[in-house]
């Protein structure tokens, strides 16, 4: 369990995290979503005590992270991609971390095997590919067999296999009753990984909800209608106050009327309807809708993409 209360952090002129309050519960994957620069990384760094909040508090299983006698038993964190000295072997990197808690040395071999690096444990981490470096970071996060697993954009730089691997790993960890918090700026990734979502923008909480609720919240009032008598139907619907746009010949997009009303109108006037589809918001749309006021870098992202 991670509890965050009124967490606030400024860097010089900018507010990175602004009065953030939420709780991350065990047994499920919680997605931590927001545009780049929304404050996700800063929040995660404050949870493990790397950054000091200006105000507010973050606790892990009831007390601040740093007050746990064996912190790595509580939280395993994968933060920015590389937290590894290039000149040290993967095995020695993990061994040094394990020794701070006197975890048994066999544990190093176990986590290397779990992330599929057992064959390259003796190699210097400087020669690792981005994906291997990411796997080594995951191994370090799992070293203490922790109650809470926290990963910041873990799929960055991974190939499709690696993305799938991370997704399954996170679900398995949550299935074991652990608390799992994973950040991403990609809604599509979270849609297939997370059950619960914390959405932030410009450091503020935008939504704390489930995936299903999030879609429901952003109701899109549009119905697409396919009819061979589209022109006549269009006149009728406009007469009832609807806004109608023609997408292609025989296909209308109607807003301001429910699908039921449109169906009644067509039936009473003897106009055949081949298709009547209320448009549902996609998760991507829901997310864009929620964060549109809080996007700082969307233009840059677009350019980069």
């Amino acid at each position, binding site marked *: 369990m991670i509890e965050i209360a009124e967490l606030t952090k400024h860097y010089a002129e900018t507010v990175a995290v602004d009065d953030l309050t939420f709780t991350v519960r065990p047994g499920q994957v919680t997605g931590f979503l927001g545009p780049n620069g929304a404050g996700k990384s800063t929040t995660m760094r404050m949870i493990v005590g790397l950054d000091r909040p200006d105000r507010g508090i973050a606790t892990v299983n009831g007390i601040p992270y740093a007050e746990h*006698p064996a*912190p790595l038993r509580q939280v395993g964190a994968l933060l920015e991609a590389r937290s590894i000295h290039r000149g040290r072997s993967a095995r020695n990197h993990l061994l*040094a971390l394990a020794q701070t808690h006197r975890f048994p040395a066999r544990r190093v071999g176990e986590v290397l095997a779990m992330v599929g690096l057992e064959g390259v444990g003796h190699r210097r981490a400087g020669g690792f590919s981005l994906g291997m470096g990411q796997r080594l970071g995951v191994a370090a996060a799992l070293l203490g067999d922790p109650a809470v697993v926290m990963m910041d954009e873990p799929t960055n730089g991974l190939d499709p296999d690696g993305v799938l691997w991370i997704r399954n790993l996170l679900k398995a960890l949550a299935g074991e009753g652990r608390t799992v918090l994973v950040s991403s700026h990609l809604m599509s990734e979270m849609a297939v990984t997370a059950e619960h979502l914390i959405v932030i923008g410009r450091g503020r909480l935008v939504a704390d909800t489930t995936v299903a609720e999030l879609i429901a919240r952003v109701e899109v009032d549009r119905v697409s209608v396919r009819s061979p008598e589209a022109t006549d139907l269009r006149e009728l619907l406009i007469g009832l106050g609807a806004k109608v746009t023609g997408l292609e010949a025989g296909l209308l997009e109607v807003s301001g009327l429910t699908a039921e009303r449109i169906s009644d109108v067509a039936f009473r006037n003897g106009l055949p309807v081949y298709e009547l589809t209320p448009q549902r918001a996609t998760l991507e749309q829901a997310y864009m809708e929620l964060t549109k006021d809080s996007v700082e870098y969307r233009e840059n992202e677009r350019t980069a993409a």
Partner: protein
Amino acid sequence: MTTLIEDRAGQGIDGDRDGAAYRVTLRRVTRSEWTKLLSLRSTWIVLVAMAVVTVGVAAGTGWAYEQRISDGEVEAGAARAVGSAFLALELAGLVIGVLGVLQMSGEYSSGLIRASLAAVPRRLPLLWAKALVLIGLTFPFMVLICLASFETVLLFAPSDHSGLADDGVVRAIVGAAAYPVGIGLLGLAIGTLIRHTAGAVTTLVVTMLVVPAIILALPEAVRDAIGPYLPITAGQAMFGMGLGEEPVGMLSPGAGAVVMLGWIAVLLGAAAVLLRRRDA
């Protein structure tokens, strides 16, 4: 809770999450830092290269010392032998000083500091452990190098019949070994304060080489008042043999050691305060 590891590849970790079994202690962090220092190839390369150069220079100075004895320029004696043996000790000081800087600045440049501080979120044990392993590795190493340098000088200067039994020789060897280690601890403090390798190394070099040069250029009264208390001159006093030929006055070996320890305490103290306070 069943553990992931039981499910997949091993036995996981037993025991209470807040139990004492896996408590972070200074002893454990020190063990970890020992692994970190020894697992870098650069540590060994640098130390071995430094040993070769230091003892090699001692061979040269020993030979020159023998010439000066036979030319009648100097009289043979333990004080002269010690002086010849440790002429290249500045190099050892610089090398171990940089090693100390890198112990911390290397963590910042690689990003490892985030993993280290997440494992040791109380932070200070990390700094103390780094200091302990630096001492633990380099002091015995330096004692061996200093002994070897002294014996090398005697080997190349057969006219000098002094040895370890002479007054002050063992003390000077221990002091000479401690001096670079002290610079190393200053380097560790500077690396923690400045965090960037280039800036920290520059600061170390300025402290060791440039400041003393500036002091030498000052009026005599100021020079004599400040000169002996610099880290470098106080450190050198620890292996002085009282020849009185240094450009600035020298403290006694004991007083030199006290001043050196004072510098280390002040700088490591400041490093500890900032390490605690700053965002990583």
